[in-house]
């Protein structure tokens, strides 16, 4: 699944998420719920800055994987898996566990495409489609058999 579709699904599933952006460790935006690309870049830059600042705060050896910053205006969530980062904003007092779960689910679906080069990602997507198509008849047979 491409990042744009994953974000569309995310905002449909989670009513708490107001805006979201997916970007890599270089700050390059893969997808955003904001229509303006300039604002998407600004959002990715600001979220990347927040993540970098949080990285400096860490006390142990373990890497920072996710964060929530709650302000009076709303909350900011950032989840990182490898080089791919997803950041989202919500209103005040969100259900943090649910938001993290939805963000991680979205990140899991877009991770292969964002982590690899576009040509490789295309092949992976095709292979995934073939696998899905091959599995479908087996799934349909199950209810008939039982």
């Amino acid at each position: 699944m491409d990042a744009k579709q994953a974000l569309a699904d995310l905002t449909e599933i989670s009513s708490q998420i107001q805006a979201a952006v997916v970007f890599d460790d270089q700050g390059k935006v893969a997808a955003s719920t904001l229509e303006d690309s300039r604002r998407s870049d600004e959002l990715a830059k600001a979220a990347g800055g927040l993540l970098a600042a949080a990285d400096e705060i860490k006390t142990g050896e373990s890497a920072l994987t996710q964060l929530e910053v709650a302000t009076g205006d709303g909350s900011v969530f950032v989840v990182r898996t490898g080089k791919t980062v997803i950041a989202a904003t919500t209103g005040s007092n969100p259900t943090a566990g649910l938001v993290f779960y939805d963000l991680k689910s979205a990140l899991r679906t877009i991770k292969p495409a964002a982590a690899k080069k576009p040509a490789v990602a295309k092949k992976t997507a095709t292979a995934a489609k073939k696998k899905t198509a091959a599995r479908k008849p087996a799934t349909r047979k199950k209810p008939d058999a039982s």
Partner: protein
Amino acid sequence: MRRSIAALLGIVGGMLAGAAFIRRQAAHRERADLYFEDGSMLSLTSGSPGAERLLPLAREVIRTTRST
């Protein structure tokens, strides 16, 4: 007389408890929770040096999404 004193104490106690609750809620409103790979979590409440660094950056993120 005793009843009125008890009622007065009850009202004052309730007001103090309410004020403490509101203050606690306000303190919890602004915070930063950091989650690490090993499962540990660090919660920085408003007023701590870490939170004071992250909160303005988070406000900037929210401002970016809401600006027209």
